[in-house]
Each structure stands twice: as structure tokens, then as C-alpha cells.
């Protein structure tokens, strides 16, 4: 059973050279990883394979003997994912071990065809399992990156700014989904309470599309703000979005809408009894 592993362990040095060579024939991303780094990673993986007891089962990767190999491959795949490798490039790293090992096994078994077939089947399924493991870890690493970025975006996406005493604005940027709208709604209502604002301007200049769901979320926010005693003004509606809203049959009759944020701000100032005037200055020439 473990003969193949024994063969690998005895020929560690020659296998390393052959593996590096086989990798160079395949896809090598010199722009993403240096030769020296690749060499050291290859050495590490091979050394780990060789350090397990020779009688370890090749058909069960979950065995305790393979624990350290699994860990090394997993961390390697995760780092590949963040470096920008594709999944197939990451899998190829392991798969390119196949041909050197096959050559080695062929050399060892001589003319015994049955033994050659048995060994190759064994080592083939072993390396396939390793490759699948790297792919799984790779995708897991990607998922982690994506979910972290999502969290960061959620944190960034709800800045409520005070425009004037009693007037707050919420500039929305990006697509609105249910989770985001919930946070947007809560932070706006919180800000209304904290700043004691009678007017809230929701600016949707940065929202690329408005569908029925987004409109419904916006209407909910506006209604909730009204229940608390604040007036909401919707601004930054682009012509295209105005067309979409009408075509979708969304009723914005009860909502004050303005084309630009400045118009909304002006209205809020007017309603709170303020006006903006230009001060005429006598321009004196420099002496």
C-alpha cells in the first residue's frame, strides 16, 4: 500500500527539481509570485509529504498523519487567493506534482504492469484529493475577503450629515438592499432624534437603480421619519430614475421630491423660516 509514499520519500530531492520544472511548463505567474518564494513553498509541501510515516494511508486525507499537510495547503491557498491567482492556477500547483511522481513510479516498478497500475491509481487519487482541498480552501479564502469587504461597505455606507441646525441629510451611494436599508433607516432615525432635526433630506444621486423594492424601502423610511415628527425630502432623482419610477407605477405623491440636493436644502431652510441672501459687497481695489 504505502510503497508509493516510500518511493516519494526516498527520492525527495530529485522530485523537487522535477516538480519545479513541471510547474514551469504549466502556467507560472511570475508577476504574482517570485521564483524563490515558489521554490520554498514547493520544498515545504514536499517536505511535509515526506515527513509523514511511510505506512500512512493515501486514500484517507482526513487521517491524523495528514493534518499538517492539510493546514499548509489551506494557508497556501488562502494566500494565493489574496494574491490574485485564479482557482485553476492554484490547483495546478498541486496537479503538476503528478507527472514527476508518475515518472518515478514507472522507473521503480520496471516491467510489472499490475503494480504500476495499482501505484498510479493510488497516487492519482491522492493528488486529486490534495488539489480539491486547495480549491476548496481557495474559494473559502475568497469568500472571507468578500464578506469582509461587504462589512466594510456597510460601515461606510450610512453617513448622516448635519447641513444646518435642524436639517440633516443622508447621501445614499450604491445599490440598496434590505439589509442596507435597515441600517440606513435606523441611523437616519437615530440622527433625527439626536440632532432634534425637523427636516431630513435623502439624496439618491448615488443610487444607480431604483426598483419597486428600493422605492418601498425609501417610502418606509420616509413614513417612519414622519411618524417621529420630521419631514423628509427626497432629492437627487435623475431623469432616468424619474422615468423608471413612473413606469413602475410607484406612488411618490405624498413625498416631497426635488431634483437637486440644493433645491431640497433651500426648501428645508424656507420651511424652517430661513432664507439665503447674497451680501452685496463694495469691491475696493487693492491699494
Amino acid at each position, binding site marked *: 500500500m504505502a510503497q508509493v509514499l516510500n518511493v516519494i520519500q526516498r527520492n525527495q530531492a530529485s522530485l523537487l527539481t522535477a516538480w519545479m520544472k513541471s510547474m514551469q511548463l504549466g502556467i507560472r505567474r511570475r508577476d504574482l509570485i517570485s521564483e524563490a518564494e515558489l521554490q520554498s513553498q514547493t520544498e515545504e509541501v514536499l517536505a511535509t509529504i515526506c515527513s509523514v510515516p511511510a505506512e500512512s494511508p493515501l486514500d484517507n486525507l482526513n487521517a491524523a498523519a495528514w493534518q499538517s499537510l492539510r493546514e499548509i495547503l489551506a494557508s497556501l491557498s488562502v494566500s494565493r487567493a489574496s494574491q490574485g491567482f485564479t482557482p485553476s492556477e492554484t490547483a495546478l500547483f498541486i496537479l503538476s506534482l503528478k507527472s514527476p511522481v508518475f515518472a518515478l513510479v514507472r522507473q521503480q516498478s520496471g516491467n510489472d504492469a499490475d503494480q504500476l497500475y495499482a501505484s498510479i491509481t493510488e497516487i492519482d487519487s491522492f493528488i486529486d484529493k490534495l488539489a480539491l482541498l486547495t480549491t476548496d480552501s481557495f474559494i473559502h479564502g475568497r469568500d472571507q475577503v468578500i464578506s469582509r469587504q461587504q462589512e466594510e461597505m456597510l460601515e461606510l455606507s450610512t453617513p448622516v450629515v448635519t447641513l444646518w441646525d435642524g436639517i440633516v441629510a443622508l447621501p445614499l451611494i450604491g445599490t440598496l438592499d434590505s439589509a442596507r436599508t435597515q441600517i440606513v433607516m435606523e441611523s437616519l*432615525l437615530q440622527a*433625527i432624534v439626536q440632532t432634534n432635526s425637523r427636516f431630513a433630506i435623502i439624496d439618491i444621486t448615488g443610487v444607480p437603480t431604483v426598483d419597486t423594492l428600493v422605492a418601498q424601502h425609501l417610502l*418606509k423610511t420616509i413614513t*417612519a421619519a414622519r*411618524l417621529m415628527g420630521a419631514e423628509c425630502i427626497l432629492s437627487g432623482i435623475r431623469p432616468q430614475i424619474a422615468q423608471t419610477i413612473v413606469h413602475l407605477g410607484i406612488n411618490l405623491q405624498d413625498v416631497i421630491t426635488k431634483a437637486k440636493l440644493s433645491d431640497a436644502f433651500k426648501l428645508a431652510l424656507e420651511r424652517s423660516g430661513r432664507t439665503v441672501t447674497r451680501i452685496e459687497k463694495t469691491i475696493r481695489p487693492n491699494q
Partner: protein
Amino acid sequence: MERIPILRMGNLLLVTIQVDMHDKLALTLQDDLTAKIADLGAKGVLIDISSLEIVDSFIGRTLANIASMARVLDAQTVVVGMQPAVAITLVELGMSLPGIRTALNVESGMEYLQQTTSPDLSEEADVDRED
């Protein structure tokens, strides 16, 4: 029996809800308030719910009913100080309470009521002269 106090300020009534509303309490408030409005001929009702943290559809509907009843009795109702969580809950329950006037706090609610309810003819004349 537990009751919510109703305070009188001139021709306005002031209700501050400081305990958790349960259904019976809400109905008692509805009875008391309508009776008080009719008795005193109040022109405005201010309901402060800033301490109210839990609201259900029944309480929401009762508030709407109180406002409508007050309207029938010729009094304006303003609900002030609704908490964000309460507002979100009401909206999620599909109760946008379209008939109710709202204000941020007691101060702005009072301001609104004093503006809209000046039934005394002499007071109205004062306002006209100021204009």
C-alpha cells in the same frame, strides 16, 4: 385601576404616556380623553409617547382612533417624541397613521398646536394685527 393622567393647559390637553401601554389602558385612555375633550371643550391634544418603547398594532390603531375621535370633537391631535424603534415597528406593521400629526418633541408639538388652535376671536384679531 391604573390610569394615564391627562393634564389641562388652557384649551389644550397634555397626555404623557410613561408606562408600557396594554390594551385595557389604551381603551381607558381613549374613554377618558374623549370625555375630557367634550367636558372642557379642548381645542388641542398633545400625546407624548417618548417613553413608549413597545408598540403593537392595537396601540397604533388606538392612537389613530383617538386622533380621529378628537377631530370629530373639534380638537387637533399631535403625537410627539416617537422613538425610532417604535416608528420602524409601526411602518413594518403597515400602519403609517396618515391622519395623525407628529412632532419631534413636546416643544415643537405645543408650538404647532398653539398656531393651529386659536379659537378665541380676540386672539385671532391679535394675530391679524401682528401680521
